Each structure stands twice: as C-alpha cells, then as structure tokens.
C-alpha cells in the first residue's frame, strides 16, 4: 500500500494540516466535538519545538492565540458553539488589530450547551456576525478528511496573507469520521508567511499599509516596538478618535478582503452543466446532497450541487450565475435557514429559493433530500 494513504479522523487531519501550514502555537480549552484537535496538538507541537497551552477558559484560549501570533508564531485554537460565543469579543480584537490566526469551530447543536455530541451547522451566521461592529470575515467549510487538511492550510495561508483571523467551520460528522487521506500532497503545498517589515525598528509604523492594503507585521519581542489596541488607531497603532482615521481604517479592513474575493472564494460544482434544479449545501450535508443527486439523476432529474467552501465572503458571483441558470435552488443545512438568507439575497430575484433543514441533532440524509427535491418539482 502507498505509505501516504492513511485513515485519519477529520479533527486529526485538521491538526496535520495546521502543522503542515506551519502552526507553532495552540491555545484553547477542550470542548466536544473539537477536543481531539487540542489533544493531538498537545501531543504533536512539543515534538517540533512548538507550544500548546490549555487556558483557564475559552476566552483566555482566544486571547492567548492572538498573543502567540503577535510574537510571530502561526497560532490556532479550536472550539464548538458555546466556546465560539465566548471567543467573539477577542475575535473582534483580532480583526481590528489585524492578528492572523485560525479559529476552528466544530459545530454541534445549539443554542447554549445544546446537543454536545450531535452535529449541527447552526453557527453559519455567527461566523459572520458573531462579534460586534462591521468587520472583515473569512470563513471556510470543507467536507472531507482530505479537504479538511488542505482547507486548514488555506485558512492559515489566508490568515497570514490578509492579516486577519480566519474561521474554519467543521461539523461533528466530518470532524469525527475517519476517512482516506493521501498525505503525498504535503510536498506540493504552497505555504504563505505573513509579510514582515523591511525597514528598521525606528522607521516602523505597525499599521502603515502597503499598496496591497496589508501592513507588514513585526514579531513582538524582535526589537520592533509598537502598540496594539482594540480601539480605532492610526498608522502608529495608538488610539485615535479622529473620524477620518476611523473611516480610513474601517474601509481598509473591509477592502483588504472585498478586493480579494476572487482569491478567497473557493467552491465546488457538481453535475451543474445541464441542471434545472440545484442544491446549495456545505460540510456533511453536501455529502448527503451528492448521494441524493446521484440517485435523482438515475430517475432522469436534472439536478446538481453548488458547494461553497468559502462560506464568507459568500461566492456571490457564482451564486448569481447559478440563479440565472436553474429554476430552483434548495439550500439544505442543519439549522433553521441561515445560509438560505444569503442565497435568497443573491438569487431570489432570478429563481425560486427553497430551504430544507433539521435541528434535531440528526444528520440530513440523502433520502429526505431526494423526497424534498421531488416534492419541489411537483
């Protein structure tokens, strides 16, 4: 057997991807169903000279992740719904202070402590709007063990490239299932490191952006002294109440993502060439949708799947094109219609948008999707 072929759990593949991307620091607080990510990071990081720390709670786990990144170490934390809620204030801090890091949310049933061991996809909107104030968001959502590995690498790369926290969404199903992975891809990965200053420490202005809207980032402790704050700040990093400064910073933060949507948006199209009806689904549900599509195709129904891998920023251009092509889009998600809002916003002027979901802790299965699609077609 090819030695690169392994049976890995989704959460395990996430850690392997993080290590391949250059993770050197993990801080967090264990929570089902993400715990294996912390556990395996704790095993593996010391062996490569990295550091793992279990903090006193979820809030501190997020704070330490930001701190680790400021010292120049690629940093990650992992959680689930309840912890994701607690981390929100510090995620906002990471957005305005432009601190690259990866936050993994292995989604379970909510709200509150909800269904700790059951899958859900109910933090889709929280990934975008969880922290207060307008802020840039990149959220990615893979659907297989292989893709969890590569998407974790993408998450680190985007965090480093755009100096921003990146949210990696998983769900209990893909986080816990074990599946084939081919690790030979490790040799061909592109790894991106944050841009560091080329000027002297005396000349350095921590938040003076280059033409690409990204300020070079110096490692704390390397001789470059600067100030980091959650307040609006000027190029030096010190707080400012000046409305012009606030306007410029807010627009630069949003623009650095908005102007790079083409680079950030990843998606998969399945059987869409001649499709008259399409599922939009992600994570575990997209796998049920694929099986439903294979079965419906056998019955002669022209149906396909659009699967956003980048959830935020949403693939607007692609969804708009889809809405001009098909008669109906069915958004299938393990929640009460969160991404459906986004798809409706983009697509509803051109086609019919339907929602199918469940929130009982059970996965959406192919049979119920087939039945729903057939009912929609009647």
């Amino acid at each position, binding site marked *: 057997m090819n030695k690169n072929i392994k049976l890995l759990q989704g959460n395990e593949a996430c850690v392997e991807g993080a290590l391949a991307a250059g993770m050197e620091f993990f801080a967090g607080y264990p929570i089902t169903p993400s715990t294996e990510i912390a556990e395996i990071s704790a095993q593996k990081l010391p062996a490569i000279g990295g550091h793992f720390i279990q903090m006193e709670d979820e809030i501190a786990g997020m704070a330490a992740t930001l701190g680790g990144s400021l010292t120049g170490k690629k940093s990650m934390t992992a959680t689930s719904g309840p912890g994701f809620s607690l981390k929100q204030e510090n995620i906002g801090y990471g957005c305005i202070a432009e601190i690259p890091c990866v936050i993994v949310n292995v989604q379970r049933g909510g709200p509150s402590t909800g269904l700790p*061991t059951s899958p859900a996809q109910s933090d889709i909107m929280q990934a975008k709007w969880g922290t207060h104030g307008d802020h840039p968001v990149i959220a990615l959502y893979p659907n297989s063990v292989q893709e969890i590995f590569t998407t974790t690498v993408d998450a680190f790369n985007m965090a480093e490239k755009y100096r921003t926290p990146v949210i990696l969404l998983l769900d209990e199903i893909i986080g816990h299932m074990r*599946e084939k992975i081919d690790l030979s891809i490790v040799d061909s990965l592109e790894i991106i490191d944050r841009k560091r200053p080329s000027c002297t420490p005396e000349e350095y202005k921590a938040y003076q952006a280059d033409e690409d809207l990204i300020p070079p980032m110096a490692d704390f402790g390397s001789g470059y002294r600067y100030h980091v704050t959650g307040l609006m700040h000027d190029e030096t990093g010190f707080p400012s109440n000046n409305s012009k400064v606030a306007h410029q910073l807010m627009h630069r933060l949003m623009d650095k993502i908005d102007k790079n949507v083409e680079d950030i948006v990843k998606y998969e199209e399945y059987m869409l060439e001649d499709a008259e009806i399409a599922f939009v689904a992600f994570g*575990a549900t997209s796998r049920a949708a694929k099986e439903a599509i294979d079965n419906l195709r056998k019955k002669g129904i022209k149906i396909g799947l659009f699967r956003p891998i980048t959830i935020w920023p949403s693939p607007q251009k692609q969804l708009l094109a889809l809405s001009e092509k098909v008669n109906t889009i069915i958004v299938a998600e393990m929640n009460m219609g969160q991404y459906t809002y986004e798809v409706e916003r983009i697509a509803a002027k051109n086609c019919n948008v339907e929602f199918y979901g469940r929130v009982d802790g059970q996965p959406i299965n192919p049979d119920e999707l087939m039945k729903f699609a057939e009912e929609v077609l009647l």
Partner: protein
Amino acid sequence: MSKKYEIRLTGSGGQGLILAGIILADASLMQGINAIQSQSYGPEARGGASKAEVIISTEEINYPKVQQCDLLLCLTQKSYNEYIATLKNDGILVVDDSIEMTEISSATIYRLPILQTANEELKKPMVANIISLGAITKILNLVKEEMVLKAVLNRVPPGTDLINTTAFNKGVSLIK
C-alpha cells in the same frame, strides 16, 4: 465489481467496537478499497448501547453514515433490540448466542459464541471485538484475512499481538 457494504457494529460501551470499526476501515484502505468509519456517541456510550459504523465500497463514498445495514453485529441484547430494525431484509445478522432473538427476519443469520469464546476459552473478555472482526472478515469475504490481521496488529497495544492473533483466528474459525 461494484459494491457498497454498510456495516454497523453494536454492543455496549467499552467492548471495543469503535476500534474494530477503525481496524476494518484501515484494512480496507490497505487493500485499496474505500472506507469511512463513523460513530454516534453520547450518554449512551457509557455502558449503554453503543455503535460503530463502517462503510466499505469499491466506489467513492459520499454520505458517511450508515442508513440500512448490509451487515449488523449485535453483542448485547440491548443493542440487538435497538438496532435490529436497521438491518436490510436481505442483510447479514451476526449475533452473540446469548441474545434472545425476538424478530423474525429474512436476513442471513450467524448466531455465534463470541462472548463465550472471549470470556471462557481465551479468558480475555476484551478481545470479543477482535473475535467479531475475524468472523465478519470471513463472512464478508471482501477484505483479505491477512490484511485485517495486519491492521489489527497495527492498532492493538504492544505485547498483545499473540492474544489478538489467536482471537482473530478463533473468530474466523467460528464460520464454517
């Protein structure tokens, strides 16, 4: 050959059925057959009914959860009662012979002394999972016995190779 087997291994928490599922998936990949292993867990995993799921297929596997079982293993009465309804009509049922079978089924049934072999013959209750794996490997006749045994030895703790090899072979020999 194109075939998909949905397998559910059920019993009580602590019987090592998740490990058995992982080993079966491992062995399948070694032989170049696709496999996905998943489980549901929660309060019921602590002594109650527990289940591990494996899907083995010569083709790509999309939906990772077992829907209707092609093969169902039940090691306890509770797990039999809970999961027997998920077996396909033409499926294969492997039950421990301590289980009282209440359902009339058109499935192919193997009623085997799995727990007795582990407890009394081998004096190691913990190898019931590996005995089961031997029997299932023989019944399925899909993944090679030597491949599964190799996967067993890759996953069990050091120093237990002999007892696990014996247990696996016992399981194989339970199927005539």
